[in-house]
Structures are given as structure tokens and as C-alpha cells.
């Protein structure tokens, strides 16, 4: 017995695929001049050594090392994250590109002896009692790829520690991930403790068992259904949007 699958299902991913390859689409976004073009391509391909090689050439030609972060590395990475947001490339490509870009940033910092100004600071953590951290790893990588400074508190982070970090770091946003229903309860505690301290910072929560209904039960919570929502949310905060506007945008259910 067999079946004609076209009668019972549709592979929408095959149907929707663009005619152009991701490589071709990325190349359309590269600058015309060298070594910028090579740096962009090396970021897209996740080739750390080639990124550094291109940066060396730029610095040798007189470029300011720290300025190269904003002029070459961040826009090169944006080509990658835009293609990911459009559903054209896969997450592992972004991860490898982010690794290459971060290697480039480290190189520029070494060369200049100074640090770049990040777009903003985000504190990331996994809920107390929960050690499942791959979601947080993805969130942190996407935020860094978008130019944000990430204070990564790791996994199984006690409520006290999150609150203390928020007080010390004064982030523009907090992220919390949890896989289990019993551990996500810590998010509510963090919310209450921050409000007691008079801190009103957007707290993006997501992960396995976390849902919008639960996140809506505490004031600072904004539900992040996808990891990719983290940089989008940070961008909105940077653009001056408040808690209610974030909820309007990301609470889709």
C-alpha cells in the first residue's frame, strides 16, 4: 500500500523556497569595495580567520579599528540576521556567523585598546531550578549578533542573583527562559522583587513550558515565543517603546 502524498499534505517549505540561493541573496547586500566585501562574505560564511584577515587589511590601510566594528562587522552581521528573520537561512548559520563576528570584535578591541559602545545591555538567565539552557544560549547569541551587550548569568540562577544583577547592571531588558512549568514560577518572584525595588524593566520570558497566559500574570513580563523575538524586542525598547507597546506587539495569542 502507498499513497500519493500530494493528495494528503503540502510541503510548504519546498513550495515557498526562493529561486535565489542564500549565498546569492547575501552577496547582493555586500559592499562593492575591498576589504569590506571580503569581511562581509567571511561573516556570512562563518570564517573567523578570514574576518580577521580582512580587518587587518583595513587597519593597514588606515582604518580606525574600533570604528570598523560599526562600519564593517555590525552591518556584515546584519546581512545574516536579516536573511534569518526573512526565513532564508538557518540558525546554525547565524551562530557560526556570530562567532566569526565576535572574533572580529575581539580583534578590533585588541588593536585599538578600547571597547565599542554597545546598543544596550541585556541580562539573560535560565530560571532557578532549571538547567536547560540551549534556548538562553540562542537568545544570547542573537542579541550579541544584533549589537547588544549580554550579561549572561547562566542557568539555574537564583532569584536573588537575578535581582542583584539587574540592580548592578541596569539593563534595558531582562530575558528569562525555562523548560519546566514548576521552575518558571521564579519569573513571577523576580517580577515582584523588582517592582518592590521600584525597577520597571521589560522582562522577556519564554521557553518550553512558558506560555503567554502565564507571562501575562505579572506586570513586567513580555512573552517571547521565539528566540528571534529577543533582539526585535530590544530594538523596540531602543526606539522608545514601553511595556504596553511591547505586549501589544508580542502577545499575539
Amino acid at each position, binding site marked *: *500500500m*502507498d*499513497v*500519493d*502524498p500530494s493528495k*494528503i*499534505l503540502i*510541503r*510548504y*517549505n*519546498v513550495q*515557498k*523556497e526562493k529561486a535565489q*540561493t542564500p549565498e546569492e541573496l547575501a552577496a547582493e547586500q555586500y559592499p562593492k569595495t575591498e576589504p569590506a566585501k571580503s569581511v562581509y562574505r567571511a561573516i556570512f560564511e562563518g570564517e573567523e580567520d578570514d574576518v580577521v584577515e580582512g580587518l587587518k587589511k583595513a587597519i593597514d590601510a588606515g582604518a580606525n579599528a574600533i570604528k570598523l566594528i560599526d562600519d564593517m562587522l555590525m552591518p556584515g552581521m546584519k546581512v545574516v540576521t536579516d536573511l*534569518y528573520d526573512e*526565513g*532564508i*537561512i*538557518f*540558525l*546554525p548559520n547565524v*551562530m*557560526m556567523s556570530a562567532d566569526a563576528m565576535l572574533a572580529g570584535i575581539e580583534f578590533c578591541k585588541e588593536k585599538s585598546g578600547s571597547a565599542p559602545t554597545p546598543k544596550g545591555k541585556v541580562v539573560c538567565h535560565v530560571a532557578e*531550578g532549571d*538547567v536547560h*539552557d*540551549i534556548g538562553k*544560549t*540562542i537568545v544570547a*547569541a542573537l542579541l550579541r549578533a544584533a549589537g547588544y551587550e549580554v550579561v549572561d548569568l*547562566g*542557568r*539555574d540562577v537564583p532569584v536573588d542573583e537575578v535581582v542583584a544583577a539587574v540592580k548592578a547592571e541596569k539593563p534595558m531588558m531582562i530575558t528569562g527562559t525555562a523548560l*519546566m*512549568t*514548576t*521552575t*518558571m*514560577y521564579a519569573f513571577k518572584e523576580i517580577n515582584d522583587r523588582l517592582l518592590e525595588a521600584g525597577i520597571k524593566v521589560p522582562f522577556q520570558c519564554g521557553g*518550553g*513550558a512558558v506560555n503567554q497566559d*502565564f507571562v501575562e500574570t505579572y506586570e513586567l513580563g513580555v512573552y517571547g515565543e521565539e528566540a528571534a523575538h529577543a533582539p526585535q524586542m530590544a530594538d523596540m525598547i531602543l526606539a522608545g517603546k514601553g511595556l504596553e507597546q511591547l505586549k501589544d506587539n508580542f502577545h499575539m495569542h
Partner: protein
Amino acid sequence: MTVKRYTEMAYTKADDMLFGNAKYPVKTKLGLEVGAGYVTAEVNYAPRPDTGQSKEKLVSEYRRLTTDIMARAVQIGFPSISLETEHVQQMTNNPTWGGEIAHVQKTIIEEYNEEYGIKCALRHTPGDIREERDYLALIGPKYDLLMESFEAVADGGADFLSIETMGGKEVLDYAILRNDMPGLIYSIGCLGSIDMTMIWQDIAKIAQKKGVIPAGDTDCSQANTAMFIAGGLLDKNLAHTLAIIARTISAARTLCGYEAGAKGPGKDCGYENTIVKSIAGVPIAQEGKSATCAHADVMGNLTMQCCDLWSNESVEYHGEFGGTSVQCWAQTLSMDAALMNVALNTGNGKLLRDMMMLSDRYRDPQGYILAYDNAWKVGNAIAKNGNDLYLRAKAAAAETVNLLNASKAEGKLQMSRFETNALADAEKAINALTDETDKFMSDMLAKYKSEIAVFKPEENYKF
């Protein structure tokens, strides 16, 4: 317990595999036989978040939900039911909590068994607590505490002992986000297998001492991570061709439990279980369309093809229009089981199996490979290399690539360019792998020790 690697298939041909039937059924003290000619629902549940605050609240929660499930099962006339309690961490970290909850649940189940004759089982699945905040801590005090938990739930009345072990996850989490094929083979096929071989010998010893059944494991922490990251058809987080390679490698790993003394039924979320069943002949639990309360995947009907217990994976205990959530899902699962049992009793079992399999076979590369005929072929590749953990994991990956490449001629499984490219990259990586196990192990050890700060091979795998 001695470890005996599988080098032959339990089933000589794929067509002999069928739901409700296993080569080696198991039987509980309350009369439930799993794999002995019928399918039974296995209901899975999670307590409401705020009940984790104290033992009393948790015990009360499990008392209520167990009573609810049993009451619904007899109200609708189901002949058998299995309950699975996956521990929240408090229950494993405090073995007396898990033990008391098992006792409370078993007492209720026994009362229903005595009054109505309903055949029952209780599975307890302690959480794999072998972690420190920053590192896996697979060996040491946490291991001892975990074994105490198994002893406590067995004393409390659990019929089946299970766990979802996490060996290798520290490397998998790194490798899966980098399309790293050798990393998948190393983390799942080697590290996961080493850990499972160790822990299942001890779980089997406890089960033997307590007169209960060492059931089985699942590669939830790795292959399901890959499956969930891969997501739906339009998600772009991981190529589904890579997710299915992670899955077939995980069959070589999950098999280790049975090699070290487990008897089945395998855990519900082990989507690798059809492959495992083809090799070991053990009964298996599976989840699919009736687990949409817990997650979405692309194999809702197909996974019923060879199941012996049919599960909903997990649902939070709360009210629904039709009763409590556990009652609704107990009924849904049991109705699915009733349909499968009708098919078995009217000689239509294989017809229904093939209909369920075909509904998802071409939906996705994952369904294509887990369809029982292809699953059997992957199992055969594993068994042929059964004595070597690395080579059998590599063989599972290679056979998966071969089957997907061969599907192109038939043209029924459509793959996107992304999936095809990822498959081609995986094939290249697999072809470049050494056939020398020692060399692979030492190369990977050096690579990941330098690249992954949280990888502690000496402490966790006794290297």
C-alpha cells in the same frame, strides 16, 4: 548486571512489527501486559506550577489527578491504563517525596484494580538531577541521590522505572547549533551511550532487588532538542535532515539501556523507539497526535505504527470543559488505543498500521526515516556494528543519509534545498570520519575539551 550488546535484529523483517505486539512483552503485578497483543493508554501529567512549593501540595496534586484518571477510565469502560509520573526536580532531589507520591498513586490504582479488575501500571521517571549549576555531574553524590530516588519510588509502588538521561548533552548543545556531524555522533552515540550503559546497570539492579520492571530511557535531552529546534516546516532553526540524523544516532544510544538490563516499555518521547524495537524486540511507549497538549511535531499518526503504550507526553493538571485535563487526555488516548485494538482483533492491524504510517511518511524527512520499514533498515545497520558504540552510531547516520538520498528517485518525499544541502554536508562529514574508534574518540576529546568550557570528560565519563 552484565552488558550484552545487540548484534542481531529481534525482527527478521520489518513487516512483522506491529502496534500492541512486542517480541518480549512485560507484565505488571496488577495484570497489565505491555506488548502482549493489545495497546494501552499511558497518561502523563505535570503538577500545577505553584504545587511544587511543598511536599504536601504535591502529594495532594498527584492524589487528585490519579483519582481523576482512574475514575474516567472506568466510567468509559477502558480495560487497562498506565500512568506515568515524570518527577519535578523536588521529587527526585528529596527521594522520600517521590516515594510517598508513588505510594499514594499506587494505593489509588490498586483500589480501582481490586474493585473493577482494570489492568494497571504506574511508571515513575525520576528527573536526571546529575548536574551542578554550570556542569553536568554524572558521577558522584548526585548519582547516589538519584539511585536513592529509584529505590524510593520502587518501594512506593512504581511498576516501571524510567529516566531521561542527559549524558553527552553538554557537547550536543554546542554541536547542534553548528551543524557539527562528528559532534552529534560523539555526544549522542558515544558519550550518551557510555553514560547510559553505566546508569542502567544500576537501575536494573535496583529493579531486580525490588521486584519491579526496569523500563527504559529516551534521548529526550538530545534528539528531542534537535527535533524541537528543527520545529515545523517553515522554521529555520535546524534542517530537518539533520534532526533525523540526530534521531537515528540516538537509537544506537537508547539501545544501551536494554543492553544493560532494561526490559521496556521504552519511554514515550523516544521517537527512536521503533528503531530500538526492531533490534531489541522490547515493548515501547510512543507519543504523537495525542501529545499536542505538550508539543507540536510532524509525525502525529506515524508514531502509533508500532507502539505498545500510547502516551500524551505531558499535560498540566487543570480544568477543561470536559473534566480535568488528565481525564480528557486519558479518554482521548484510550479511544485511540481502542481503535488499534479493534484493528488487531479484526485482523486489520497491519492495514491500520500502514494507514497511520502513510499519513506522515512523506510529510517530512523525519517521518520518512521513522516509518517502520526504514526504521528497521537503520536498526539493521546499528545491529551489524552492534559491538562498537562509535561505529554503530556512525552506521545509523550513514544509513539515514543513504535512505534519504535513495528517496529522491522515488520523488514522493520532497526536500527543500536547505534540507538537501544540509544532507549533502552531513554526508560529506560522515564520509570523512575515521573507521578507527580510538582515533575518533581521542580526536573528539581533544577538540571539545578545547572548545567547550563546560565539558568535563574525566569527571563524567571516566576518560
